């Protein structure tokens, strides 16, 4: 029963694939409902499994509270992506160019990717870890290149495939060295057997590079801007959220579960990576004109903040990181939902195109502003609370300079997020501007994600729940047991 959520997701994927063959085109709306329902049922099952810990296949598949929290993120991200792509796949957008075809395959592939991510966080073995990572990544290659008639989209897909394959190869090499050093593929065994040697650090470097690609850590971020811009926007939203969370899951497994005892030797690596990632992401975001490229660099800088949670294995490090991940996905999805709404109705994707939105659609502009402020870390929104906790972890680990860098970076990021706010609120409206109609699906998504972005930070319940349940997992005892 432990694997039920994953099985539900995969089953839903296959059912959609089969039904897609038989259903007439006008009846295919049911496929989207089915995908959403599958994810929702899996989410319900996952929520119900809190408190149940257990393992399958001789300890190669483990469910604990940390895994459950990650799975909820993946499922939520999948559900939002279904909701965000709804209008485009059903052809209800005003802008014809942004419509997407082949919805049966779209949902199937999305569900498979989600299942891969869910397996990833439950894996305790190098082989299953790698396979589930590939299961989550390869469908994304397809999704990125979905709109095959659009040259930008094709280019994005090609870049993503080539660089993704390269990073996978590097990652696999690193995992191979880890196996060679310990003679085992079991994470717990590796963590006990590894000794400090140049080969270990070579392996760590390769794993970091490989996973840095998924997390868009600088200098492995090169693909992000083109892929984010070229991919269909719902896929971009999915990439910026789910793919990033999967990367965090992978880092958590390798660096906490395997190398947690030696954190003092690798946390400086993360401090440096965080510094350059957030600085470069922020500085380059300033000059972007296309809002999807802009969000790519914003996402890069957010990855820099996220990995600050790994600076020291304190009991509050993981809950802070998880909490920020939740705050980040809700906030980021607010912004992407508005971007998709605007592109669906007008086909426009430049920052300048948003001028006067506060006059034509005040509520949507308000939601967008809240989302951007939360990304910039303005209290009392959830993005601020999450950042505050992460900064505190860095400060506790003694990285006061990094807190300084991160806080100054937040200020820089406020500068470019305010650029959009300025377009929406200060600049005059465009000549042809009228009030745009929003579809119920997008309106609901914006409403729910905005509420999340606002109330996660104000109501302590969410953080405290994460904190308490995560303490039930064995991650902390693994670190203290192997600490040297």
């Amino acid at each position, binding site marked *: 029963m432990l694997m039920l959520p994953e099985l539900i997701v995969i089953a839903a994927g296959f059912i959609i694939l089969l039904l897609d063959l038989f259903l007439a085109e006008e009846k295919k709306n049911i496929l989207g409902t089915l995908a959403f329902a599958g994810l929702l049922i899996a989410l319900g099952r996952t929520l119900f499994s809190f408190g149940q810990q257990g393992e399958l296949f001789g300890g190669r598949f483990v469910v604990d509270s940390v895994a459950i929290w990650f799975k909820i993120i993946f499922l939520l991200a999948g559900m939002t992506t279904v909701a965000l792509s709804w209008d485009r796949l059903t052809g209800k957008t005003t802008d014809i160019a942004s419509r997407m075809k082949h919805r049966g395959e779209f949902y199937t592939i999305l569900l498979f990717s989600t299942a891969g991510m869910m397996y990833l966080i439950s894996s305790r073995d190098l082989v299953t870890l790698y396979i589930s990572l590939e299961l989550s990544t390869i469908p994304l290659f397809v999704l990125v290149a979905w709109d095959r008639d659009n040259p930008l989209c094709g280019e994005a897909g090609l870049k993503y495939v080539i660089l993704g394959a390269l990073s996978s190869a590097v990652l696999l090499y690193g995992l191979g060295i880890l196996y060679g050093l310990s003679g085992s593929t079991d994470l717990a065994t590796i963590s006990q057997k590894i000794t400090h040697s140049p080969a270990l650090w070579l392996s760590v470097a390769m794993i970091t590079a490989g996973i840095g690609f998924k997390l868009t850590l600088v200098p492995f971020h090169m693909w992000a801007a083109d892929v984010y811009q070229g991919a269909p926007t719902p896929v971009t939203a999915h990439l910026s959220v789910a793919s990033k969370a999967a990367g965090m899951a992978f880092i958590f497994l390798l660096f906490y579960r395997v190398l947690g005892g030696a954190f003092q030797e690798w946390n400086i690596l993360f401090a440096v990576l965080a510094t350059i990632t957030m600085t470069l992401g922020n500085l380059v975001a300033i000059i972007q004109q296309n809002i999807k490229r802009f969000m790519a660099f914003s996402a890069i800088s957010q990855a820099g903040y996220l990995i600050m949670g790994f600076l020291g294995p304190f009991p*509050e490090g993981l*809950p802070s990181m998880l909490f920020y991940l939740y705050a980040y996905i809700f906030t980021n999805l607010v912004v992407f939902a508005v971007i998709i709404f605007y592109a669906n109705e007008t086909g426009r994707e430049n920052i300048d195109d948003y001028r006067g939105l506060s006059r034509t659609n005040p509520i949507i502009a308000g939601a967008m502003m809240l989302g951007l*402020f939360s990304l910039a870390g*303005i*209290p*009392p929104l959830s993005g*601020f*609370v999450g950042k*505050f*906790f992460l*900064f*505190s972890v860095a*400060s*506790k680990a003694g990285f*006061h300079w990094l*807190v*300084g860098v991160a*806080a*100054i970076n*937040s*200020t820089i990021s*406020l*500068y470019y997020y*305010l650029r959009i*706010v*300025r377009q929406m*609120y*200060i600049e005059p409206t465009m000549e042809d501007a009228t009030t745009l109609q929003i579809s119920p699906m997008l309106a609901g998504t914006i409403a729910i994600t905005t509420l999340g972005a606002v109330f996660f930070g104000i109501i*302590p319940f969410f*953080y*405290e729940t994460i*904190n308490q349940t995560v303490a039930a997992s064995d991650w902390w005892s693994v670190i203290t047991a192997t600490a040297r």
Partner: protein
Amino acid sequence: MGILSWIVYIPFITAVFVVFTPAPKWYLIRWISTVGTGIHLILTAVLTWKYWQVASPDFSSMKTATLTKLYLVERFPWFESWGIDYYLGVDGISVSMIILTSIVIFTGVMASWHVKNRTKEFYVLLLVLVTGVFGVFVSFDIFLFFVFYELAVLPMYLLIGIWGTGPKEYSAMKLTIMLMAGSALILIGFLALYNGAGGQTFDLLELSKVDYPKSFQIWVFPLIFVGFGILGALYPFHTWSPDGHASAPTAVSMLHAGVLMKLGGYGALRMGIYVLPEGAKYWALFFMALTTINIIYGAFGAVMQKDLKYFTAYSSVSHCGFVLFGLVTLNLIGMKGAVIQMFSHGIMTALFFSLIGMVYGRTHTRIIDDMGGLAKIMPWFTTCFYVGGLASLGLPGLSGFVAESHVFLAGFFGNPWHDLGIMRFLTILATMSIVVTAVYVLRGLAKVFQGPIKNPEFAKLTDADITERISTGVLVFTMAAVGMLPWYLIDLIESSLMPFVNRLH
């Protein structure tokens, strides 16, 4: 909810009412805001009375206290695992600042009576901003403090960006980014305080009991002091202030120069000097030199200005210098002077900016040389302007004199840790600024109000209407009241300042 929560959330509740008022009914919106801030003013009077009731028996025992005693405390846990509480309380300094803010926002709403462009958004942002300000003055949990602090700074961007004049986008961005950079410094300092104390609590009073090592205090204190100093227009970080104040709409300039800049002084006192006394002693002389530059530079800057708003903004830089100068003298008189100056300057500068806004609304120019002889047309405005100007140059009987005399005396008395010669030298330099102030105030007022009417168009203009008379009248009255009866204000703050001084010894 206790009275302090009401103090904080009444503006916010008013803002919510405004949100649900249809936008075309702008006249209703301004009435809702007026009523909301009016209720707040009454509640502030109740708070002051209540505070007096509970706190005055303790006044004598505070003389030797080293720990701030809080009254009307409201406290319950918020993020328990981090030791973050929702923790409100007041001492005399907070109460005096709440009175100031309540007066300024009430008159500010009155002064923006004629905002007709997107009235709804204007009032919502204004009220949210002031919620943050009240929150800062009553928070004694540094996380909560920081939340309110940033909430008070950010709405300024839109307020200046949408309703401002001149290079408004540039000024708004410059102001926001500089102030946010300041709060970045503060954030580093706060987290260092938290983790330096073992990472158990964000309670300010608990943290102040911690004996931080001297080396730690020496690097954290400047972060916090400069971080707040940016908002308090500390030289050389004051550059946002003239641009920001000149571009902002009337009520926003009033609130920003009148109240928000006081958050800087308040934070530097509460978070810097109180928590890190050793650091304060180490850096005091350095910051005293900077604030002396502030005072003199601001005064000379004002002499050169041609625009009335820039003129007042530079004079604000100079006067806010007195606040920080008083704080870093590290003796009781200086800190008293600093707090009185916060109050006095808050009222004075709010008066100036509201008058400038009202005059500009009529003449459509703020250039000093283009005006002249306005006294014949607008006697009410002229009188108010003169009272404000005289308070600004420190005329006895008005609030400015009380504050400045305290600050200069403090500089002359010195303190046990620093060289008396240097302190006196700096004090003399700072005192000279009074002469410069007299020059620019009297010359500026003469040019604007006296002499023949320069522009025949002006002869048709009218004097103040009823809302304008109320708002400026309240401010003039407060200023004169503080000047003539300063002991009420001094009694209110003195016992609360004792722990700050006692901790230093």
